[in-house]
């Protein structure tokens, strides 16, 4: 089972790279939601249901919503 957690964390590394290099901010927020989902599955493998219950609402719901609100107040594309 622990190997599964390692696979999820490796996918999370890939997603964090995508989040950093993405210039379309809305896409980056969507990627961070998927990143949260991968961390969730890792926590599930590690048998931490209390952490999952808080994390699922905050990372997938609240933090994504907050970021979308903030992006709607600036520009959508990052200017390099």
């Amino acid at each position: 089972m622990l190997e599964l957690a390692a696979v999820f964390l490796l996918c999370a590394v890939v997603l964090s790279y995508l989040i950093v290099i993405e210039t379309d901010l809305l896409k980056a927020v969507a990627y961070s939601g998927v990143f949260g989902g991968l961390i969730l599955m890792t926590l599930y493998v590690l048998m931490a249901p209390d952490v999952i219950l808080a994390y699922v609402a905050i990372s997938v719901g609240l933090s994504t919503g907050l970021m979308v609100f903030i992006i709607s107040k600036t520009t959508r594309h990052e200017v390099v």
Partner: protein
Amino acid sequence: MRWSKVKKLITLSIILLSVLAGAYYLSSYLTPKIELNALGEFYIRNSYFGEYSSGSPEVVTAILWDYRGLDTYFETAVLFMAIISAVSIFRSMPNVSFHPRGFTNITKTGVKIVGLVTFVAAATTAFHGHITPGGGFQGGSMLAVVPLLVIVGFSKKTLEKNGFNKERALVIRTIGLLTIALVAFYPAFIGKYFMQNLPIYPKEIYGMLASGSLSLFNMAEFLAVGAGFTIIFLLLSNPEGGREA
């Protein structure tokens, strides 16, 4: 394939290879632990049955609100300060009138169904927090998703027209925080320890497991966290200069 994409792929593979190499190198030094340490064993043995019982079979909640209750108390205080500072930053915001459009009926019906299910799940998580995994903070943050869904699917005006405006959310949050403070300070007033749980608050009420003050703390934190996050979303979804939200 364009050169920029190739460059990204090369960078990504370098990162992945270095992570894998680092994990392989470190794995010989980090061996998995088989037995619990003394503190963990104390919590697991005592949380429900033992001599220092907190009356809850859910060890995490017992640690959060009883054994390490002081930490959680001040964590709640930090959240209180953060939301108060956000409210005071936004206090001079003008009230712009706007005509909300919202999404189509398909989205609105979906929001209604998902909102109800989320609300029930949040309440179950919070009110069963002393028996099953979950608790006040978890339930509260799930509860805060419901107004967020309503703001996105319908509009901020719909939420306010149905009686859930910023002032009322502040009142609900204050009730929750006051309950936490009262339940925490009451044992200290009658000559016991601050945030003491079991001999003072009942372990069972009419045969139902209440785990002393744990269920009270969970309900109060549920209200405080849910309403606190809702205030932030109500403030952030304020339209600027007539823009629709």
